[in-house]
């Protein structure tokens, strides 16, 4: 959780300020589709090594 709290990048901070729900998820094959309300899905891409 400490890691997450340090993830206050501009995109997240702006979405929170705008009253949007933020969903952070890793780069996975799943799909999150906003249905109603204000929602921002931020996908964390895995870096290629």
């Amino acid at each position, binding site marked *: *959780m*400490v890691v*997450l*709290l340090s993830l206050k990048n501009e995109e*997240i901070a702006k*979405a*929170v300020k705008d*009253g*949007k*729900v*933020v*969903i*952070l*998820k*890793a780069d*996975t*094959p*799943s*799909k*999150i*589709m*906003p*249905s*109603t*309300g*204000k*929602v921002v*899905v931020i996908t964390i891409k895995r870096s290629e090594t």
Partner: protein
Amino acid sequence: MNMAFWLAPLIRIGKAKHWKETFYVILPPNTSTAVRWGPRQYGRVYHVYKLRLGTPRNYNTGEVTYNDKIYLWMRGKEMEWHWHPLLESVTGTDIPMDTTATQRDPMIIEYHNDTTDTTVVFDMTFHIVEYNEVDERLIQEFMRGFINYFLGYGKIGVVPTPERMIKKLIRW
């Protein structure tokens, strides 16, 4: 014992995959929203057998925040709409599930933060067995084999056992 354990023979022969998905959710005060969640590909099935909700925290301070004004509603193909308040008895423990999500019929999750001054952050993890839709009937039959086996334990004429189903699947 979880579903992935029972389906291990199918995972081994490539008929199913076992994985989990975690996402972090940040809920500003006075927000509610709904999302649909499921596989990106048509023809795939997510069979969710376990959910774990993390501890809700104040996004700004990191302090644990239990409040019945912060809650989820969710449904799946085989799961009724139900309420998940982010309270102590619900979070931090495994919640058994047995429901599926597909492109056509995804899981629906509604997030609510009815507080007026607290931005909340929490994480949630779905444990999944994924397979092809065309295999769904066989997998259901395979699982039913276990149920029949245990129900019929000690009785004469036990109907399809898992072993027979594995053989059938491998041939198929």
